[in-house]
């Protein structure tokens, strides 16, 4: 979060110079989300394995993340937002990462379980 001070100096302009998304972009993103939904259902029924490790869960999560990113960037206009907004979004994801990873350092390395 310490990078804010640079952010605002370099961008004296205000966010309200607003980018109005085109209807075509929205339709395109909607289509991509529908395809993603179909893809994730289809992938769930395939047994995807590499070297004995099932890749179904990572694939489902990657598709979900791509979909979520599309929503964040286009529906929520983060693509055209200030750096501060982008940093805010990233910090949210980063902190969720802290919670999940550091918790899993315990659950995945327990010798006694």
């Amino acid at each position: 979060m310490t990078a804010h001070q640079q952010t605002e100096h370099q961008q004296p302009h205000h966010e309200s110079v607003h980018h109005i998304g085109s209807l075509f972009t929205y339709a395109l993103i909607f289509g991509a989300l529908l395809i993603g939904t179909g893809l994730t259902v289809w992938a769930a029924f395939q047994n995807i394995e590499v070297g004995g490790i099932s890749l179904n869960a990572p694939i489902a999560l990657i598709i979900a993340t791509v979909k979520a990113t599309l929503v964040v960037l286009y529906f929520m206009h983060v693509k055209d937002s200030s750096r501060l907004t982008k940093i805010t979004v990233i910090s949210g994801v980063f902190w969720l990462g802290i919670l999940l990873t550091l918790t899993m350092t315990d659950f995945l390395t327990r010798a006694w379980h």
Partner: protein
Amino acid sequence: MSTAVTDVVVTETHVMPEEHYLNADHSLKSWLLTQDHKRIAILYMLTITFFFFVGGIMASLVRLELLTPAGDLLESDTYNKAFTMHGVMMIFFFLIPSVPATLGNFLIPMMIGAKDLAFPKINLLSWYIFVVGACFGLAAMITGGVDTGWTFYAPLSTTYSNTNVILTAVGILIAGFASIFTGLNFIVTIHKMRAPGQTWFRLPLFVWAHYAASIIMVLGTPVIAITLILVALERGFHIGIFDPRLGGDPILFQHMFWFYSHPAVYIMILPGMGVISEVVTTFSHKRIFGYKAIAFSSVAIAVFGFLVWAHHMFIAGISMYAALIFSLISFLVAIPSAIKVFNWSATLYKGSVRWNTPMLYAFGFIGLFTIGGLTGLFLAALGLDVHLTETYFIVAHFHYVMVGGMVLAYLCGIHHWWPKMTGRLYPELPAKLSALLVFVGFNLTFMPQFILGYLGMPRRYHSYPPEWQVLNVLSTAGASILAIGFLLPMLYLVWSLKYGQVAGPNPWESTGLEWETSSPPPSHNFHETPVVTSEPYNYGEKEGEV
């Protein structure tokens, strides 16, 4: 450092400003529906003072019980409820909102040169939410209390306890949203409401500290909210999340609980550190040493604070590899804290130190926080923690940080900005006496507890072997002195509201935008938006040159 012990003495006679935020409207409605951050700060202050004394009564019960080795004053069940309610009241309904919701609320807009916080209605809403949550907490206490400890460990809280767990959990959950809204308001205000010229590195360190604490409030609090919801659901509807009989893992509860509750320690201490930064520089009449180091150390504490939570769980059965990582990172948190202590000390060097009450509290803070912080390192060490955890050593450690640190910082800040909030000076002599009583009483209460803990006295029992009685009697005696030290300000501060000397806009000859407006400030803080042209703490060049 100057050799003579001197005070700032206000010799000029000032008159109260004709119009200010306190006399803008006298009706009760104007207070209950106010959107003025200064009035909301006062509402918060009254509310948390009440809960401080509720928690204090519980603490007195605990100390009185421990006066004698036998569990004779309180039954063990009652004792469990007493220390639980002490913890719940003090942590969730006093310490978390203490400095941020009162002083932070009052001062941040003024320090950055704004008319108000970004979202005044949300600010008022947060106070109402807090009051509702606190009422749940009180209701839980009155209708039988809760005995799980403030930590609500599962499965004790979800299955075994027969007390008001759900009611208390809901109260904390609700109050948590008050904290989230306060943090949200601060973050947005500090980003978007600064006066022209008020750049990030011209912000007072008080504001930096609150920014860091707000990050924790916003990112940590929701996790305990959902955790407490799960506890309440599991208890009320017997669903299985943490229940080992269904394969659930109680240690997961501890992870989720401490993910918030460890950083919450920094919600409690960071704003206090902000207060100390302001007071040390004002009463040294000297520019703060290492401004950027202090500013960044606040942010570093907020970030590192999220990486160390499992040091509360070393003996809970977590993986030893995870414990190693958490232990190592825990040591890292000491670095930014030490940076602050060194910088405050360096600020005193060759300053013209004045010994007014806020400075006494600040000295107390620096010493006691250092002890609290250093004993924290004992507990971060894996091997030693096994011996010391769940003993009075840990009780003493966190009271040194929470009371020796935050409560002293709170009192420090209240005295320092009292003239700004009320327009009148507190009386210096009783204030110094109370600062002294608090310091002496505090050390007498908790220093013996370090020894008791080292000797192995476990926490949360109402009886103990007779050989520990001397130390416990000392501790209880100290607690009574401490209680007098806390009660005295109630008397002379209220007295000063009517009879105190009129302070004038800047009794401490301090820098900072909040001192440039009248005391008490007008409803919109400044008659015209200030323009900031120089860095903070510019004591050398106050007159004339920039």
